[in-house]
């Protein structure tokens, strides 16, 4: 059977599965119900102390937990949940064997403060500098931080879990990352390289540093202004075949 083609002769791309986790809830049904009921997922942050912070609201997902906590681990978990939902709806491939590549939009990744401080507390010298600190970083005790905080770590773990094919691509183009993931997926299908792609976008980065940094750039609003998410916390997964 020949695949249906558009007027340019390219394979037509369709969405066969979607998954979503947001501050409103988990899954398409719950999100749709709350969205159409006019509910908002924006609320006062409880994830970390708000002392001396002017912005106090976010669309954080707090009903999903990861231990030990890091924004990166949460982002990964949210992506897993959304992907599972999308794959279940799509019925494509089999468990751990997705028949195509992964395109992942993911927030910037770096070692986070709880982990930095965990290492700092073990540095034997008082008033240490970077070289003393690096000596404590090495030796293998914190090797799991390398696995966690390499830029490609979320994509690597998702690719292993879902058995996507080839080299997964992580995208970091701020708010355009998700659109770029979908664009790369659509293009790959149109080129005939693959019949299906897994396009995922995830962001669980409500943490003090991202908070202060976005405040520095006036990306987020103080509470005197109508509650509003400082950054989009929405994520969706679309599988297309």
């Amino acid at each position, binding site marked *: 059977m020949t695949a249906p083609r558009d007027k340019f002769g390219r394979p037509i791309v369709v969405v066969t599965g979607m998954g979503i986790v947001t501050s409103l809830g988990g899954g398409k049904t719950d999100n749709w119900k709350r969205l159409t009921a006019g509910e908002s997922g924006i609320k006062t942050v409880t994830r970390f102390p708000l002392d001396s912070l002017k912005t106090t609201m976010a669309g954080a997902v707090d009903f999903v937990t990861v231990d030990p906590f890091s924004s990166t681990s949460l982002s990964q978990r949210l992506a897993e949940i959304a992907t599972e939902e999308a794959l279940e709806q799509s019925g494509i491939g089999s468990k751990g064997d997705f028949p195509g590549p992964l395109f992942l939009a993911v927030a910037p990744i770096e070692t986070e403060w709880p982990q930095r401080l965990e290492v*700092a*507390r073990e540095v034997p010298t008082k008033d240490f500098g970077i070289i003393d600190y690096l000596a404590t970083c090495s030796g293998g005790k914190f090797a799991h931080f390398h696995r966690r905080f390499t830029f490609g770590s979320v994509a690597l773990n998702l690719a292993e879990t879902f058995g996507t094919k080839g080299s997964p691509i992580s995208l*970091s183009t701020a708010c355009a990352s998700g659109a*770029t993931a979908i664009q790369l997926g659509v*293009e790959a299908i149109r080129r005939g390289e693959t019949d299906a792609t897994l396009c995922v976008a995830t962001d669980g980065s409500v943490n003090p540093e991202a908070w202060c940094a976005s405040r520095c750039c006036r990306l987020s609003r103080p509470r005197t202004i109508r509650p509003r998410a400082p950054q989009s916390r929405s994520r969706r997964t679309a599988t297309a075949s």
Partner: protein
Amino acid sequence: MAEKEVWITGVGLLSSLGEGLDAHWQALGEKRVNADDKRLAPYVIHPIAPVSFDAQIPKKGDQRQMEMWQRIGTYAAGLALDSAGVKGNQEILSRMDMIIAAGGGERDLNVDLAIMNADAQGKLPPALLNEKLMNELRPTLFLAQLSNLLAGNIAIVHGVCGTSRTFMGEEASSIDAARIAVARIGAGQSDIALVGAAHNGDRGDLLMLYSFGDFALKDQYAPVWARRNHPGFAIGSAGAFLVMESREHAEARGAKPYARLTKVVADLAKRKQPGAVTKSLQTMWPQLGVSNDNAVLITGATGAEPATAEEREFLGQHPGLAVRATGTTFGHTMEAQFPLGLALAALSISRGALYPANDPTGLEVEKTEVPTQIVVLGVGHWQGEGMALVEAVK
């Protein structure tokens, strides 16, 4: 539909050796290496060569709001546009696509160390962390930290304004950047693209991540192939950018190619299994279409283990190859590893020669014949593998 031929028509290089193609060709010919084992001792790094950024980033205000890695990248991107003859050509730049491979930005180490010391001494209740972050993080620094701001700066400074995509993360990101650019141009989804990456190795904050995994080279510099008993990568500094375009597009504007970029393949080996990297490279090799086993291979082998040993195993199966390891000369330039290899391959093809070996172990051999096919190899220190075939234009 037949795939379009993809040409490399522009190459921009800034590294620890200097700037521009002539300077690099000369330095490679002299086997020059610029390594520093003092500034971040015991770690060995390759700092960027002194350069006046004004030549490619004329506005001081633009330079000020960039961190070093972005200046390096924006500068090298400008060199690539110059060498392709499209600098300032608004008609072309306005539709030139861009795929950048980027890591994260540089941190203010003084702020970080003050916070970490305060905490270690029990003087940092959680509320104070917020306060310190609020007061001491600078907006300019935060902007400079975003991965996609290199692309943003290139768009602002050079006016590259087609689609813009930033692939994040270590070595694989730039292999994929080249792969996607070639696929898009080959399929007619793009006519011309700027592809590259930048890396600044003179960063204590960067060493943290690699120290966790004990990947960084310590104490003493050695060529990559001579690190068997003392493994690790010396972090390098480089901006490497390429202008890639379809043959038709290049010919229509009378552009001269450095080389043809025939194929790029990438993989994600399951490295938990020993030998996975060797197997991955064996699987990719036949996909390239190398016609002669006496070709040239430029590798970004890092010196970190076990990846380098597994790569060496693969190379041992192709004894006819004339191998060159960029890590010996430039250090490991992470996201820039693969574009640097592509740039040196295109440069060698265009000069009709391969630069001399620089390897006391004898793995690298001299080659006097004119190279017509050069394989570029990239193996990530932790994940990601890829290869490209760069050929002389027929």
